[in-house]
């Protein structure tokens, strides 16, 4: 296929994908009446009215903090947890290795959220942590762990084992030395990519947060948005403004994309 054909097709599709997003963001900044009257015109009547309403919603700030906290905490905890396991999967041989790795990597598909949600609900209730961030955190960690494990293994597979062998033959032998002096500096970028990935997974997660937060105070932003949309809340402007707030982090990453090399993100998600 000729290069220009490819370019045109790619650009067209990209426009189709990004225009709705940008349109939603812009529309959130407009007056409701202008939305209804002339949807197409890009008048300069930008109003932050909708945004103000969103920010002043009773649960907004709490839900925002919940979302951010959950995303950061689950990313950090998941990354800490998968590090030794992925290293072991990558470098060590042990009995039943094939079975253990397959089951760990696939557990989130075999035992998917809708299946586990009811037992989780009951167990978390019994422990008294239903309707709390801790409860949602636990489910988010469970949800992300297997996926992060598979990526972790790939990350460690990408570091040549000879580097460790040379260290070992020079008596630089301890786990701490090997990991922090040799392996870790080479996987920093991949870990950042992994962090972003788990952050995104937790950020956009709806199902667990929706069910475990039994009152609106402990929900996350997707839950807030979902409740608004599915309720009788007919105020388009506010809904759109709130959606924009959720779109913006992703758009922000896009703008940074010229600096963040695509390769590094790719290398943390490619499977070989």
């Amino acid at each position, binding site marked *: 296929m000729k290069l220009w054909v490819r370019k045109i097709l790619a650009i067209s599709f990209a426009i189709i994908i990004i225009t709705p997003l940008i349109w939603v963001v812009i529309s959130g900044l407009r007056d409701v009446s202008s939305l209804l009257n002339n949807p197409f015109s890009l008048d300069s009547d930008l109003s932050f009215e909708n945004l103000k309403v969103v920010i002043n919603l009773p649960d907004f700030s709490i839900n925002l903090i919940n979302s951010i906290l959950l995303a950061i905490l689950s990313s950090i905890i998941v990354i800490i947890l998968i590090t030794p396991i992925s290293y072991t999967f990558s470098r060590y*041989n042990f009995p039943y290795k094939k079975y253990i790795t397959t089951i760990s990597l696939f557990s989130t598909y075999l035992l998917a959220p809708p299946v586990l949600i009811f037992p989780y609900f009951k167990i978390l209730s019994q422990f008294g942590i239903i309707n709390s961030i801790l409860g949602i955190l636990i489910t988010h960690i469970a949800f992300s762990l297997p996926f992060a494990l598979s990526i972790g293994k790939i990350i460690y597979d990408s570091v040549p084992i000879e580097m460790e062998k040379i260290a070992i033959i020079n*008596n630089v032998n301890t786990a701490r030395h090997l990991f922090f002096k040799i392996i870790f500096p*080479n996987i920093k970028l991949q870990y950042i990519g992994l962090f972003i990935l788990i952050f995104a997974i937790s950020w956009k997660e709806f199902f667990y947060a929706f069910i475990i937060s039994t009152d609106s105070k402990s929900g996350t932003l997707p839950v807030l948005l979902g409740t608004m949309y599915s309720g009788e809340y007919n105020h388009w402007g506010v809904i759109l403004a709130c959606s924009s707030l959720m779109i913006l982090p992703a758009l922000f990453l896009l703008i940074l994309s010229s600096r963040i090399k695509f390769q590094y993100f790719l290398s943390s998600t490619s499977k070989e």
Partner: protein
Amino acid sequence: MNLLEINNLKIFRSDILTEQNSIVENITFSVRPGELFGILGPNGIGKSSIANCICGFIPPLRSSKNYFTWGNEQRRMTGEIFKNGVEISNSEPSNRNIGYVPQNLFLYPHMTVFENITFPLYGKNLKQVEINKIGEKILREFDLSEIKFAYPRQISGGQKQKVAVARAIIKDPEILVLDEPNANLDPIYKSELLPFIKKFLRSQNSCAIVITHDPLEASKYFDKIMIINDKIIHQLDSPNNIYNTPKTPFVAKFFSNIENFIEGTYNSDSNLIQSDSLGTIIIEDETNISTYSRPDIICGIRSESLKIIDLNKNFISGKIIDEFQLSGTNFYRIQINKKNIMVATSRNKRYKINQDVSLKITGIRDHDYYFFSNKITHKVSK
């Protein structure tokens, strides 16, 4: 006393013992202090496995299975390794005091040249001041002071090689193992590295084991060479000796520059070789073949021992199919009986392609004919 002694080493592909399972067998050799020892052989034959064994990366074959192994290493070894008389076959790589330069160097990309080189010293619990001092000294010896703070991705192949060797040498190991150090280098660097290592060996009384597949460079610098093919040692000797008296057809072809091999049957009474290609060959020089008693024989002849003469019905004849010059000598390739292609030289007359000529086998010196049996295990010539 031998610095390094390998006794009856056998390397297996996995820990399941089957017929076809071995990579190399019956490897026995020793290295003295100050010696540069070469392991030579074709690609894929198992030389790197021997290097890995010496370093300690291949675990010994145990009767009981080891349940938790690091490094995805499938191979196993049996046999003994001694260093200065002490058996180290079961000790860990970190305790063997060996410097290792792998084939792809594996310099640490996130460290500068200086950090790469001084890295092994962290295993010795030295103070940073000490480490810096030793590092500086090595930098000067290797002439790398200019790129002290450069990163591996910024320096050339030859410099990377030096850094890798410096990294292996800095902790003053008794044994150096280099896996194909010259494989990716320009010819200029090729001629620098091995003499430099030899100098180091003499001054420190350590030894080095170099894996290579280039016979030419091997003959120039090594004190002793071990040639490996088909899982076993074919010959272990100084380069000069191997060149002059190869023990198997493989060594003759691979190392000693012998290009012509004639198969035939040998009659020890009449000292005749009946060959399909060259008819009857009369052996006049008896010392070479006197101990040979089997009927099947391979006769190796150097191209310098054969001479092309004008077409003469008393001598066997054929057609020249190729011709080239090398170092002032003319080489010809002759096809005889549609089967054999032989290379002969002639200093005097120039012959042309497609010309019919005759072949004169003149044997003057001892080293012109080599006799091997068809089976490798019976080595013949002296």
